[in-house]
């Protein structure tokens, strides 16, 4: 059996053909031809392969070649400034030197980190943080080694850069807040974008070292405006990363500057004037609705956030019972207390109550089965509207409120801005509550009770408002116009429209408020020492819980159970220009100097005579241990010691100034004020290190806004 000439049983490897020279030569010819053909075929195949790579896939490889060759570096845009109404910077930029590590290119971690530590004198904590960051670094995200280096350090590192692959020194800008803590809540702060921010947009700018996002306050709300367009630097690099030449550099476009309605000097003054208290001051221009000052204290130093806040400082701030991390002006809600009484009186007038109607205050009034007391146990006797406001008589309001009803009061409260949402550029705001029967039904499914009305007339119970709303109320009471608060200076006057409140009604209220301060009322501490300018206002005390209404005085209670002290008002009383609201949280009226009325009065004084107000403040600050910035630093230092993390180090070093006449004079005053103020045992040494008063000029635009906290080595000025 044969298949195709092959014998299956004895397979012949070599075939059976007889080979002759001629046949072999023929075979050679055929095979050589085949070989030549095969070579040509391979040649053709190579050409087509090349065509595939070079023409069909040209675009892909062109791109790869470009991305090899060109290294694009993004330069973060300079952030727009935030300036006050006169153009003074509240947030600016300053050049800083920075060092980052690009984890992808980083080699020999142990050695290089060791060298960097000694070169830049890094703290062991910082080294731990870098190691931690490097461990979880995603490769693309640069890890910051150090920020705010001195030029010498920066230069020393730059010289030795070739030894540290993956270490990238950079020159950039960091945010700088000249006024420090007093603008903390208002301006907010910036920080490096988080990984989540990057995941959301995949914007390469977000992972550029040195780029900062607004994280809080106006920095966050106005972020879009403030962030400019990034610059870019395209360089040609070799495979080893050496830069061959610059291809193109596009400078960054700085962000827009934002002009605020804030008066930097006033803002800082108010912050400092709040002293050691936890509180807020909001001041509004009655002609325009401009917010001149929106201060919440104590505060944090936004400068410490812009470079990444230390864990310790954060811990200290979050543990503080004065809640320095809450913006009290917009996110703090308080019972307004008696400060609502002028508003309630106005609603009475609207409802037809004659201002001459009287009630006899005996110190208490039975409502249902409960007796509600006046703050003066003995009673005020016969009280009309004027006297009720002036003396803050509760009984008058209890009595007429029951007759007139809550709906009228609530409508007026809302008309004047309480519980209202204003379109303000702040990320977190609380709007509070103006209760009425419908609200209570909806919220608690309970009927409105008479005692609810009674509570609301003295600004207690369900009523909760934020300080900005209270300032709006003061401004609307002062003008009768529906002024709205503004933070952004847009060059327009937002005078507001008349609210249709008869002038004679307003006059009754204003006169009563004038006498609260300038007559025999409860707010005498707010009196101004400015010729021809009288402040009109209303004080308030807001009980925090049931315990505070018990017989024990404020001083005997723990801090968090003490009453809030409040003050709202405007000046001048006859032609209102500025409206103010001040709250001292848990102040309990224990300290006259640091109580709401006097703080309000001094802030108003600053508007008319900055020099005078500053002089008074300097005296006070000697007793308080310096400016908020200094106290914050000392507090941090004490906190560090308490945590056993550091040895006490004097933060303020004014030893060179000791013994100068100015200082000895200062010390005496400091002792006086310390006596007048709250007893402060732990601050005994603080009188030894007083701050030098900064030069204060009569013109608030020029000198007063310069933050003294930033020029600690200023020569002493004898006054």
């Amino acid at each position, binding site marked *: 059996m044969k298949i195709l000439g092959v014998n299956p049983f004895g397979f012949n*490897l*070599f*075939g059976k*053909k*007889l*080979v*002759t*020279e*001629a046949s*072999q*030569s023929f*075979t*050679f*010819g055929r*095979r*050589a*031809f085949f*070989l*030549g053909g095969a*070579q*040509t075929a*391979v*040649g053709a195949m*190579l*050409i087509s*392969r*090349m*065509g595939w*790579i*070079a*023409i069909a*896939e*040209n675009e*892909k*490889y*062109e791109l*790869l*070649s*470009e991305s*090899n*060759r060109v290294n694009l570096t993004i330069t973060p845009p300079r952030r727009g400034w935030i300036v006050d109404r006169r153009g003074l910077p509240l947030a600016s930029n300053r050049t800083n030197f920075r060092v980052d590590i690009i984890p992808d290119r980083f080699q020999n971690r142990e050695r290089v980190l060791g060298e960097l530590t000694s070169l830049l004198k890094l703290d062991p904590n910082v080294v731990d943080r870098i190691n931690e960051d490097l461990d979880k670094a995603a490769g693309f995200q640069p890890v910051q080694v150090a920020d705010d280096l001195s030029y010498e350090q920066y230069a020393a590192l730059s010289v030795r850069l070739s030894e540290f692959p993956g270490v990238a020194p950079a020159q950039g800008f960091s945010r700088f807040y000249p006024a420090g803590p007093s603008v903390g809540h208002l301006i907010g702060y910036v920080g490096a974008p988080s990984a989540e921010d990057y995941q959301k947009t995949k914007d390469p700018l977000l992972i550029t070292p040195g780029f900062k996002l607004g994280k809080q306050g106006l920095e966050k709300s106005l972020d879009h405006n403030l962030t400019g367009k990034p610059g870019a630097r395209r360089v*040609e*690099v*070799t*495979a*080893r990363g050496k830069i*061959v030449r610059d291809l193109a550099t596009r400078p960054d476009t700085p962000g827009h500057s934002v002009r605020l309605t804030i008066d930097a000097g006033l803002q800082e003054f108010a912050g400092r004037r709040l002293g050691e208290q936890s509180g807020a001051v909001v001041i509004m221009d009655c002609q325009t609705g401009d917010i001149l000052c929106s201060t919440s204290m104590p505060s944090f130093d936004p400068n410490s956030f812009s470079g990444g806040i230390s864990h310790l400082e954060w811990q200290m701030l979050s543990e503080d019972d004065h809640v320095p991390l809450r913006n009290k002006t917009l996110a703090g809600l308080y019972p307004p207390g008696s400060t609502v009484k002028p508003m309630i009186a106005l609603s009475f007038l609207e409802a037809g109550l004659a201002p001459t109607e009287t009630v006899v205050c005996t110190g208490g009034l039975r409502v249902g089965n409960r007796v509600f007391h006046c703050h003066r146990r003995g009673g005020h006797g016969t009280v009309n509207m004027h006297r009720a406001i002036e003396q803050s008589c509760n009984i008058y309001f209890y009595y007429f409120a029951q007759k007139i009803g809550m709906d009228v009061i609530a409508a007026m409260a809302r008309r004047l801005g309480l519980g209202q949402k204003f379109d303000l550029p702040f990320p977190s705001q609380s709007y509070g509550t103006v209760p009425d029967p419908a609200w209570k039904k909806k919220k608690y499914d309970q009927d409105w009770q008479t005692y609810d009305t009674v509570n609301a007339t003295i600004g207690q119970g369900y009523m909760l408002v934020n300080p900005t709303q209270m300032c709006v109320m003061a401004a609307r009471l002062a003008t009768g116009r529906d002024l709205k608060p503004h933070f952004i200076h847009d060059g327009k006057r937002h005078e507001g429209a008349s609210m249709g409140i008869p002038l004679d009604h307003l006059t009754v209220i204003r006169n009563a408020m004038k006498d609260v301060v300038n007559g025999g009322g409860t707010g005498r501490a707010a009196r101004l020492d400015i010729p021809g300018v009288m402040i009109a206002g209303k004080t308030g005390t807001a009980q925090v819980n049931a315990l505070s209404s018990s017989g024990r005085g404020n001083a005997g209670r723990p801090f968090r159970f003490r009453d809030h002290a409040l003050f709202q008002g405007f000046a001048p009383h006859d032609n209102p220009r500025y409206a103010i609201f001040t709250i001292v949280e848990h102040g309990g009226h224990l300290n006259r100097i640091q109580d709401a009325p006097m703080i309000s009065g001094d802030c108003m004084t600053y508007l008319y005579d900055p020099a005078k107000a500053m002089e008074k403040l300097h005296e006070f600050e000697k007793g308080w241990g310096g400016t908020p910035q200094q106290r914050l630093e000392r507090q941090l230092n004490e906190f560090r010691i308490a945590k056993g993390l550091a040895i006490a180090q004097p933060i303020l070093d004014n030893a060179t100034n000791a013994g100068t006449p100015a200082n000895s004079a200062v010390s005496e005053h400091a002792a006086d004020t310390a006596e007048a103020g709250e007893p402060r045992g732990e601050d005994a040494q603080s009188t030894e290190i007083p701050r030098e008063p900064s030069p204060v000029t009569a013109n608030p635009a020029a000198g007063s806004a310069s933050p003294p906290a930033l020029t600690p080595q200023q020569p002493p000025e004898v006054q």
Partner: protein
Amino acid sequence: MNRLVPVPEVIARLPWGLYALLGAIACFGSIVLFSAAGGHIMPWAGMQIFRFSVFLVMAEVISRLPHSLIRMSALPIYGAVLIALILVELIGGVAGGSQRWINLGFMQFQPSEFMKVAIVLAVARFYSILPIPQTRTMTAIWPAGVLIGFPAVLVLIQPDLGTASMIGFGGLTVMFLAGLPLRLFVGSGLAVAAIIPVAFSFLHEYQQKRVLIFMDPESDPLGAGYHISQSKIAIGSGGLFGKGFLNGTQSHLDYLPEGHTDFVFATMAEEWGMLGGTLLIVALMLLLRWGMRVAQQTDDRFARLVAGGLTTTIFLYIAINLMMVMGMAPVVGIPLPFMSYGGSSMLTVMLCIGIIRNIDRNRETLGDRWR
């Protein structure tokens, strides 16, 4: 033909067409090396053109040797190179991780290069001695197998996969041309395909890695696949007309490794594009066609086998190198003739040219005529 300038007969009879082709390729190679050096004659372009000139003279000298000398010395040369290969194993210096060189004091001697020529000569000589009727017997196979196997294994253990396969392919080509039964080649081709996985496990780790990376260079673009990735980027980004002379970025910015030696084609293609690449490949193919024509026009058994075998050796250089730079073969370190900088490979190729030229000159007078 009328000539205005009288040219001596000796010079006029030189193969000007061939030399023009070689010269053109070598000059183009030098131009590329000039660019690869960042626009400098030194260190590569000048040396390359100098070597080419020297080796061209050498080739001309070889072409004028008596053909019988080449025929008679074929086996002795093979023996000498084989001994040198064994010496390399014993005393060779270490270069690039593998033993390939003997330092002769004045130059680095690389016997495996010469083996590429010697194997062709030796196998061809064997078949010219073998009585024709025995072509299809076992006698025609095993001696050739030994002749090829010995040096191929020696080179493989150096280890130099590229050269070993060139020696193997060169010898096999001569066997193929000698008229061994076709089924033998088909059968062993299938057998090789079957044992490749086994052979793979015997390769050095770095060779295995190269083969694996070749299958998927993008899997490790920064590591072992770097060579092929960057080479493809260079070729691909050249496009149709290239980026222009001295404008290649892949080579000038050091992204392309070995841009003046094994990957010189990528350097060229980046600047001269598809156009330059096609012209170069066509020119090299013309050279191969010349070699194969010499083989086909020769009646002498030894001579035509040598011509065909040596042409195939040159072809193997070209094919392996180009497939490598275009990502179709693993990175094995075979240079591109006339283009890659280096003396050894040019010497080998010019030896091949010289011997083929010798055959071309003498084919009219060679014996063994059967027609």
